[in-house]
């Protein structure tokens, strides 16, 4: 019997009941017998050498099991440096601290309150060094964050990493297409602007947490991680063990957004557990998360030449990424986003310089969008300014310039299955762009704006999946994709169910556990639906083929309608046996030429997202009220339309926070002034637009599973510039730094009127 179609169904999440009853498993909840809690002693300064650590008082406190510093860590891990791009981050600070909040020592106790109290008794003496905090200054500063750089060489796309000796540069990505200088010289008009994005934090509501337990022969790490396979490889490397002695498992994640990627607390808990010979759990507080990973602050200088027909003929982008004290995955952010820094436009001459810099701020890494929102902020603000200057309608100006199917993008890779035009047109239609727009009365002015962004997927990356069929015909999928709220469990179940002709609800997803789930690069960058989706689909097909082979072996004619359980019974004489389908998926990739950044195969697929905004600005106070936020995206063919819609609106709401509210505020010494929700404000219900609409265009990713591709980030792309463009439309002022606070807007209004508001 043919089950109804499983892909394309708006099936509720498989784990819905567990989540509404509070019973879903998170590592946050995990406690093991004999477990110790680790509390960290953190650096109160941004840059300095450690003169002395005095832990006597803490060690003497009743209930304290141990105080661990790098000296102890090095007894078991001689070179305790980790990281996905550079092996630059010590498990605990060695001789030097490079950012505020850097872990210097760990206190272990069976009672978390005692560990915390004892941590306050550890005194550390520092010799302070001058710090470097600004990304543009870091490019030329004599203050060096690292004396030497150690490329990791782990990932295929980052093999060329070297860093620049004697500088703070971790990576420079260069792209040269055509001849921008000549085009600028010949151009009718040239426009140049600079834009800045502030540092922000992911703030998953389940704060980062990891727990390790060690035996003589192995270590098991329970971690709220988006990348269990990478953790295993990295821990095995640090310990000098084979991978098979390291087991990494996860549960549901209470949000990730890139914060829980690569390696965060895992090396630390492993070292602590090995030293203590007891299981050790480290749970960060919300405050500690701010010291652990952030989103890159970023400065973009962008210059374009436009001809008389309103066609962009050349564009140069210079991008400085504030990577903080440890590279984390910043170099990849720098390179991958560099591919598309010139925007979704068909431009003959392009020059891009994208530079990852070390500074004395907390490390920056991946955050939903992988650098793209910072770039779209720049190029779509810039695009809007050009359209205004040319007195062209912003939609029409984009129409003339967008990349169309079959045209080469800046890297030279030809656009395929990227519905840029369809997305733009649908957005304009939803906003009724051609109709007259109500402008408001009195001090409250209305405006509207759009913005359009795109992204290349991270490549090359592999996913491996297993699909097992038990003797009763029930199906389980074993894969390393981590469900952190994006609904991957449900999507993978739908894919397997579609192939195997089962109801998706009946498919069980085995959560990542490197002892039983095969390799997966990581759950990041909207790659899982495409990569793991393809792997699961093929593994399910493999299982289906093996079932067919079994039927043939039993002498059944092709297409014989025999239940799976019956096949097993006939084969084994009882309810016994297992069929294992397996597949791995690795799309092809051609690395960009080091000198020109050009490649004909930059990505296996493109993500496209656009945002339209209608808003009111109170011109007397600068307060903004969002009336409407419309997201349109190309996600290929949605596997689960309901989940896709919540992914789009959820991403847009998150980016709305990064646009209007959120900012990590540092003082001149690199101290973070607002590491808590009391002063770092994320959007609540009261901050939402009156109307939120999300829509996908009819499209198909031909190489994707059932036409699908990634969706998790597309809703973020256009939000910031669409809002700034709408503010400009309403009150005639342009903001070039995020966040767009009421005060910043009001100040711009006053400045434009030639009556600047006093500084203080």
């Amino acid at each position, binding site marked *: 019997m043919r089950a109804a179609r499983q892909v394309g169904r708006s099936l509720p999440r498989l784990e819905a009941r567990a989540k509404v009853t509070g019973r879903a498993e998170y590592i946050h909840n995990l406690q093991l017998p004999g477990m110790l809690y680790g509390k960290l002693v953190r650096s109160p300064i941004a840059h300095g050498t450690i003169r002395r650590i005095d832990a006597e008082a803490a060690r003497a406190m009743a209930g304290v099991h141990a105080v661990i510093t790098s000296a102890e860590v090095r007894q078991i891990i001689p070179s305790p440096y980790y990281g996905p791009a550079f092996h630059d981050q010590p498990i605990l600070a060695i001789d030097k601290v490079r950012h505020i909040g850097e872990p210097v020592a760990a206190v272990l106790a069976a009672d978390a*309150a005692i560990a915390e*109290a004892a941590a*306050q008794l550890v005194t550390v003496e520092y010799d302070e060094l001058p710090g470097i905090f600004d990304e543009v200054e870091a490019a030329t500063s004599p203050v060096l964050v690292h004396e030497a750089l150690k490329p990791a060489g782990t990932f295929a796309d980052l093999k060329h990493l070297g860093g620049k000796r004697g500088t703070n540069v971790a990576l420079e990505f260069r792209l040269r297409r055509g001849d921008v200088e000549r085009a600028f010289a010949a151009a009718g008009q040239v426009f140049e602007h600079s834009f800045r994005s502030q540092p922000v934090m992911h703030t998953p509501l389940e704060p980062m947490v990891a727990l390790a337990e060690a035996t003589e022969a192995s270590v098991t790490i329970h971690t709220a991680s988006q990348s269990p396979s990478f953790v295993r490889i990295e821990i095995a490397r640090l310990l000098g063990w084979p991978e098979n002695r390291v087991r990494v498992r996860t549960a549901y994640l209470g949000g990730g957004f890139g914060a829980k990627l690569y390696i965060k607390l895992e090396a630390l808990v492993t070292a602590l557990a090995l030293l203590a010979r007891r299981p050790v759990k480290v749970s960060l507080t919300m405050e500690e998360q701010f010291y652990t990973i952030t989103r890159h602050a970023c400065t973009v200088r962008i210059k374009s030449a436009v001809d008389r027909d309103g066609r962009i003929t050349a564009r140069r982008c210079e991008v400085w990424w504030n990577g903080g004290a440890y590279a984390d995955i910043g170099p990849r952010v720098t390179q991958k986003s560099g591919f598309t820094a010139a925007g979704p436009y068909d431009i003959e001459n392009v020059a891009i310089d994208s530079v990852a810099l070390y500074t004395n701020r907390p490390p920056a890494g991946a955050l939903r969008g992988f650098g793209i929102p910072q770039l779209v902020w720049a190029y779509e603000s810039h695009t809007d300014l050009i359209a205004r200057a040319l007195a062209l309608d912003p939609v029409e100006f984009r129409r003339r310039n967008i990349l169309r199917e079959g045209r080469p993008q800046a890297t030279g890779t030809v656009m395929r299955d990227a519905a840029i035009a369809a997305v733009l047109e649908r957005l304009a239609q939803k906003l009724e762009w051609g109709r007259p727009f109500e402008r408001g009365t*009195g*001090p*409250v002015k209305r405006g509207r704006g759009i913005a359009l962004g795109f992204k290349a997927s991270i490549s090359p990356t592999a996913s491996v999946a297993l699909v097992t069929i038990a003797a009763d015909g029930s199906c389980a999928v074993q894969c390393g994709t981590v469900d952190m709220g994006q609904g991957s469990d449900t999507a993978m179940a739908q894919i397997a169910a579609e192939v195997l002709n089962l109801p998706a609800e009946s498919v069980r997803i085995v959560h990542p556990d490197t002892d039983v789930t095969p390799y997966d690069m990581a759950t990041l960058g909207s790659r899982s639906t495409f990569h793991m989706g393809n792997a699961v689909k093929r593994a399910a097909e493999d299982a289906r083929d093996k079932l067919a082979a079994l039927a043939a072996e039993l002498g059944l004619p092709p297409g014989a309608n025999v239940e799976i359980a019956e096949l097993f019974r006939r084969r084994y004489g009882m309810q016994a046996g297992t069929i294992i389908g397996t597949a791995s998926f690795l799309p092809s990739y051609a690395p960009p030429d080091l000198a020109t950044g050009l490649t004909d195969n930059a990505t296996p697929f493109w993500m496209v997202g656009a945002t339209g905004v209608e808003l009111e600005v*109170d011109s*007397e*106070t600068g*307060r903004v*009220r969002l009336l409407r936020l419309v997201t349109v995206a190309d996600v290929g063919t949605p596997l689960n339309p309901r989940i896709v819609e919540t992914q789009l609106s959820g991403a847009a709401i998150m980016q709305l926070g990064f646009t209007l*509210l959120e900012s990590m*505020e540092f003082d001149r010494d690199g101290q973070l*002034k*607002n590491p808590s929700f009391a*002063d770092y*404000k*994320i*959007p*609540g219900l*009261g*901050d939402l637009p009156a109307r939120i609409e999300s829509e996908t265009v009819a499209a198909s990713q031909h190489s994707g599973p059932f036409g699908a591709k990634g969706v998790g980030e597309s809703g973020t792309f256009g939000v910031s510039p669409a809002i700034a463009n709408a503010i400009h439309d309403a009150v005639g002022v342009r903001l070039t730094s995020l966040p767009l*606070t*009421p*005060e910043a807007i*009001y*100040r711009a209004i006053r400045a434009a009127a030639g009556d600047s*508001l*006093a*500084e*203080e």
Partner: protein
Amino acid sequence: MMPFDLVEPGTLREALALLDPEDSAVRAFAGGTALMLMMKSGFFRPKRLVSLNALAGDVASLSLSPTGELRIGAMVRLAELERAPEIRRAAPVIAAALRRHSNPRVRNVATVGGNLAHGDPHMDLPPVLIALGAEVEIEGPAGRRRLPVDGLVSGYYETVLRGDELIVAAIVPPQPRRRALYVKCTTRAADDWPALGLALSLEADGAAIRAATIVLGAATERPMRLAQAESLLAGRTADAALIGEAGRVAAAEAAAAIIADARGSSAYKRRLLEVELRRALARLLDLPAAGETR
């Protein structure tokens, strides 16, 4: 948090006896919402906490006298205040202000006494009570005394309460012919502590103002009466020009006292004060919405 002594006396007298005027590490614990934050951050390390949660009677109840005087026991929770029919009748501005105060979970436990005793200048309720002319009743070893709420806070997180005194009630006098309004201005998220709070109470016939009380909260070291704006309005019939003038006068008189912080520069808060006061007056006096937004 480090261990401490936690006691929960059943009577006010016992509670008072457990306090210690000499030791600031001994404190009353009401809803605990402010104290827990300070204790968790290590800012306050108590030696003894005297929970007032077992107290009953007057100190935990609310009443409206026939003359229209409200008596709000110190242990009345903000949520009870928000919903009490007596409040809606006698001083609806309190209920309205509480609607945007903190969040329902905090309001379910935070108390009126804790709110006033905390002395945090950023709070919403004290300026409202000051504008209504409210008083606090305080009990200590020397007996009871009464103070205007305006006189309670002496500075930044400082009150005139002695370490062995407790607030037992807030008393709001009858409000005949008075109209009151509280404006909460947030500048970061919509729901946040105020960048600026503005409490107004007017005695007026139509647009003819007999007396005005205007209190600025959150933007200054302690709630501040805007006396110049008040006297500008008193005895005048309001029109668009007058309320605009009131906004400017208020901004000028508060200028030196307004503090810059993460919620805004001093210049911006002065601007907010000017605009919001003008708009609030327009609303209260039913004048054309000069600059009205929503």
